[in-house]
């Protein structure tokens, strides 16, 4: 039987013909560095605000990186833009709104609370509540189910238990 299987496997193997597939080409653009010394504002308070805002803004061409962390040229442009607005006297909100007007909600790493993101934002609370309700119901049902009367042993089972109990343990 085993031999037969082995031979069958060997015979079937070449049927799975090789498939020629085109090559894939690698990889990402070269790295520069994130925030550069020449971008940093003289005023530390303003710079600190710029950093906080930068952490919330997405580098649009990267994978979920903030413009504060990103090496991309676009991120640098956005960092400079943020600092220009702040230097011009915009508040944090005005600065962010300015960027969102140009690039859309996509630029916000913290999605805005609106209809399309409702499910996302309320999910933690809703899921947790559903969980609590589920656990409570399950627990209550279990208590009721287990409270049901115990089924007595049948005569056969009784006899077997007696026999087992009567057996002397071997020393």
């Amino acid at each position: 039987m085993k031999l037969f299987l082995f031979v069958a496997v060997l015979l079937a193997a070449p049927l799975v013909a090789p498939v020629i597939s085109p090559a894939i080409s690698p990889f990402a653009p070269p790295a520069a560095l994130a925030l550069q010394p020449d971008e940093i504002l003289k005023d530390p308070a303003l710079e600190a605000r710029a950093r906080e805002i930068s952490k919330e803004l997405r580098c649009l061409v990267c994978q979920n990186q903030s413009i504060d962390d990103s090496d991309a040229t676009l991120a640098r442009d956005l960092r400079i833009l943020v600092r220009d607005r702040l230097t011009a006297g915009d508040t944090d909100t005005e600065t962010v709104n300015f960027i969102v007007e140009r690039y859309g909600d996509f630029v916000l790493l913290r999605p805005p609370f609106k209809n399309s993101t409702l499910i996302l934002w309320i999910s933690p609370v809703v899921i947790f509540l559903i969980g609590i309700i589920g656990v409570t119901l399950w627990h209550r049902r279990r208590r009721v189910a287990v409270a049901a009367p115990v089924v007595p042993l049948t005569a056969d089972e009784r006899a077997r238990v007696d026999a087992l109990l009567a057996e002397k343990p071997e020393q």
Partner: protein
Amino acid sequence: MIAEIGHYAVVLALMLSIVQGILPLVGAYRNDAALMGVAEPAARGQFLFVFIAFFALTYAYVVSDFSVALVAHTSHTLKPMLYKISGVWGNHEGSMLLWILILSLFGLMVAQFGRNLPGSLRARVLAIQGLIGIGFLAFLLFTSNPFLRLDPAPVEGQGLNPLLQDPGLAFHPPFLYLGYVGFSMAFSFAVAALIEGRVDPAWARWVRPWTLVAWTTLTIGIALGSWWAYYELGWGGWWFWDPVENASFLPWLVGTALLHSALVVERRDTLKSWTILLAIIAFGMSLLGTFLVRSGLLTSVHTFATDPERGVFILGLFIVVIGGALVLYAIRAPMLKGGGLFAPVSREGALVLNNLLLATATAVVFLGTLYPLALDAIGSGKVSVGAPFFNATFVPLMVPLLIACPIGAMMAWKRGDLPGVVGRLRVAVGLAGLVVLATVMIDGNTDIVAALAMGVAAWLVTGAAVDLAERTGLFRISFSETLRRAANLPRSAWGTAIAHSALGIMVAGITASSSWQTERIQIVRLGDTVELAGYEVTFRGASNVTGPNYTALRGTFDLTANGRKITTLHPEKRDYPAEKSGTTEAAIHTTPIADVYVVLGDSDGKGGWAARMYHNPLVPWIWAGAIFMAIGGMVSLSDRRLRVGAPKRVAHKTPAAEAA
């Protein structure tokens, strides 16, 4: 020739996996021992053939056989040997082969060490593993064959992404895959148990070591990846809530929940269908991670294949495997009857809370990762879900979990005594309070959230210590008696305490490094000294150096504290001509309580260099915590209970046997 042998071996492995996936199932159904017995030799054979294939591919990389297309596309003769070997899995096809190698390795381990399992369960577990193997081997052969030839063979290869030319590549993916694929064991046990219609404490005891192996290795794998990102990406971040990171974090979260719920099945014979569901989902999340990385939906360092055909294949595989298991679950789970009752305040209750919070956290990370893709797919606009979202949702869910952890671990089974447990933890409460106060006093800005988080860290560590002290009677009975008790304490109790306190170490590292980081980004000239959190960093110039397959600009920075020389740091900016890209190599001075992290940037053309310097307090604790967590897992794994297995049923003596 070697490549053809590898190719043929993959085909043979596929054939064997078909045998392994079908015959033992039929055998178990018919109670035919001969058919069930096919499972083990098939599993051994499958491992052998996949190993041959893997060896053949490694050989092609080692000798730089550029007639193999994959080698030509992802290797280079000048690449150091370490990266030639680890480069085997630094690409889509090779990493898939590694995935399958580990899958077959787990199959082999069941075949070798699964003798204490009942025959039908063992046959079914191996059969499910075989079925998973069919899917992945077919995927490899039909869409991602690593052994395809290139004619004419190029003289030189195209090289490997320089970011991946790092010792991290040698360890991060294998550990990660051990974790991902390890959950296939929990999955196979769950499906086999559903087919048998029987889940009992013995089942939980059999499945636990496999889950522990998967969880431990996944912990190491994720930590290695995060450490790698920290030193390689050049700005000191270590977790980005990047979709691919999330993809590895999801199975970890579910796996953690599974470890805890399986404990309830083992001890109290209840929470069965939930545990089975977690086992299915844990592997589902592993498959999802595999799918996301290879689907072309995301792009990052991790995404190898941007070929939609492959994405569709894996998505199909995912739907068949997980969908099939869930259908089976829907049919069979209602049959599973729970055993022990418990009061809401009890160890079981605490573990249910643990599962509730971990499950919610999983759902949040899952939604946050896939929501943008889903929204885009239905044409409702593009949104980004990044770190600020996860920090606002995930972290609040972790707070009650961490606070409840030491209390739950000391709670009695069935019916616990909350005030009593908190009373016994008063030392931990006091120490945590002290840490909060001390933090507020040291930190001038009085970041109260950070101070509280440090308190939680202290709570976790001292809570675990109090638990051990209680169990061993420390300070209450004679010291020798305590030692005796400590020696007799089950290994799993030690494992739990180690892992829980490791969580505290990690929380401290995360809190301190993100709250009290010092950063200097500026132009430095020769001889310039920069003050950095009690250290002085002096720039001593930059020079060109040549590596095996790169050229680099190498900076020299003297690190001193109060004028006393500590070390010299050499950050590099590397340029890899073959790959036409570069990397930054941060120079890091690690002490037990902080990292000094220096990165060299571009020249400003006027004798100055852009430099980034960080002082990251307690950042090594993040990875130390992960290592301790894994050690906790390993200690738990060495528990006697897991090795003894189920007591064998003694066969009734027959006259023939007595005569013999």
